[in-house]
């Protein structure tokens, strides 16, 4: 697994993939989808797919892949090694969603929630396999949300493919276990070797699991809080843990879409120029009541002053 393309720019999301085994282009295949690092406040979330011919399902079982969460890091690395050695019939692909992508998506003007982001990422990975000629017949997905709706969405999106969405799919279907191992190995490696883009000197690497309830993670978040910038891009700003700490310890920052619901935001987009001008100039200023400033100035938000 070569992570260098992500490490070159870890502020954006990145796709990594194995070679497509030839046999996957000629035989009916099954594909598993799983994710790693959904909960942590630190580091990327990784989506993984793994696929192999339906005829080799049993062979995959013999590799003894299991749900990545029940394995130690060393075991996961060993199993990933085995998968890699089976590259003549097992393929995989990963989408690394950088913490910066997660923050900026979830905090976007038109909010992009984590579920939508996850679903879109999973769909793009399946599409990637199809685009590369993988003869997909069965897709197995692990899910945290309601399975039925997600299954319906995927079935509609990929007609002709039998989609199974199930909680704990990673312990039920070896191909999902394999996907979860790929995703988890990538997430662990990325977190371990995180290169801070910020110019912070040597950063204490003892950030624990990255889960908000891990005391080490908490201590790290307190230590690395900057009063103006908040956190380095390694931290997911959209997590309430990070927000709460910034609210109590960093300086307040206000955006023009604060305290707005979607409809208000849309209105604001339409009327921004006009209304923001007036809200800014409403409270007493130098302009007399009757004088109307020429639109050259109002359009450019230029006004005269009566004091510095």
């Amino acid at each position, binding site marked *: 697994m070569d992570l260098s393309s992500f490490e070159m720019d870890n502020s954006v999301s990145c796709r990594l993939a194995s070679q497509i085994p030839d046999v996957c282009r000629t035989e009916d295949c099954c594909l598993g989808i799983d994710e790693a690092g959904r909960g942590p406040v630190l580091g990327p979330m990784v989506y993984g797919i793994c696929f192999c011919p339906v005829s080799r399902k049993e062979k995959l079982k013999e590799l003894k892949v299991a749900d990545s969460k029940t394995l130690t890091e060393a075991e996961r690395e060993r199993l990933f090694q085995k998968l890699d050695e089976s590259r003549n019939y097992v393929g995989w692909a990963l989408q690394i969603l950088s913490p910066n992508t997660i923050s900026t998506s979830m905090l976007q003007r038109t909010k992009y929630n984590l579920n939508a982001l996850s679903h879109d990422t999973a769909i793009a990975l399946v599409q990637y396999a199809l685009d590369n000629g993988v003869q997909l017949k069965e897709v197995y997905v692990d899910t945290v949300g309601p399975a039925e709706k997600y299954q319906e969405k995927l079935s509609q999106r990929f007609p002709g493919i039998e989609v199974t969405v199930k909680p704990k799919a990673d312990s039920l279907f070896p191909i999902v276990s394999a996907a979860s191992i790929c995703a988890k190995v990538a997430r662990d490696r990325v977190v371990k070797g995180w290169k801070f883009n910020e110019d912070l000197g040597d950063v204490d690497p003892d950030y624990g699991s990255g889960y908000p309830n891990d005391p080490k993670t908490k201590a790290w978040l307190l230590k690395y809080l900057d009063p*103006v910038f908040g956190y380095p891009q390694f931290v997911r700003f959209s997590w309430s843990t990070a927000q709460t700490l910034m609210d109590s310890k960093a300086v307040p920052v206000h955006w023009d879409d604060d305290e707005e619901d979607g409809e208000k935001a849309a209105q604001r987009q339409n009327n921004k120029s006009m209304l923001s001008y*007036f809200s800014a100039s409403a409270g007493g200023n130098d302009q007399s009541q009757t004088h109307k400033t020429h639109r050259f100035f109002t359009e450019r938000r230029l006004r005269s*002053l*009566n004091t510095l």
Partner: protein
Amino acid sequence: MATKKKRAPSAQNDSWVVIAADSVIDTHKHDSNPAFVRLRNPSTDAASLYMLGSGDAQLYEVKAFEEDFHSWFVGQTVQRDGRLLFVTPMDPLYLILPYMIKSDKEGKFQPVHQVVMDEEFPACARLLSCTRSLASLNHIAEEKEAGGLKFHRYSQEKTLNWLKKKVERTVVVLKKRNISVGEGVKSTTYVRAKTESDCCEEDYLRYAHGLISEYISEDLSKALLRHLQLPELTSPKETEPPSKKRKLSDKPVKAGEDYTKFNSADFAWKPPKKMTAAQKTLAKVDKTGMKPMSSFFSPKVKTEK
């Protein structure tokens, strides 16, 4: 999600981001410091901030670019106040003019030093130190010399000719900079009523006249409009198909005499606190090709003088 905190009121500023004409910082030319002063704004009659530089030889105007929700990073510091101040050279005649007009009521030639006086704004006397002031007084006044002293009397005719030249200069730059002068507001939501190429000479003249009017009294502005042979737009009726208007508003449209309404029409109105159902619907419809919204609401902003 995050708790949204209320904005705390801002304390008095102690730092400012400014874009200033190079002459402000040309320290070779003079040894006295420039200073921000308050003078009477000829258009609003209220105090505005100006700058006198080069030992009072040069007057500057101060304008702030100001949008809500902005702050500056300057080097390794943060400045909460996100305004950007422009300090641009200004013609001192615009500020001298109201005093000349006022003194003209007596109809006699007077020494200008006795005219440009203002108890409220004592700094106005410094305007006469500006290099261009005395040399260019002939643009707005008749001049007489007696006993080695100069006397002046306001001349509207001269002033209008001078202002006309100002308008013409402005038109040249508006065209050069490709500034949208059509009735449409340059904004993504309001589709321009006319494209740049449709803009006729009159649009440019009216726009430039509106800009110059920022520096003169309303009366003089109207006189200038006549001098430019531009008809005064007295009522939106002339530009508005009546059918459309009746449909959109049941209130009578006031026939404002104030030409400036047309310059700032799109910004001059404030939405009424409560909109009628029809107005709400209107607010949602596509505004493509429609006329300034001020014509839909009675102009609450203006009235008493």
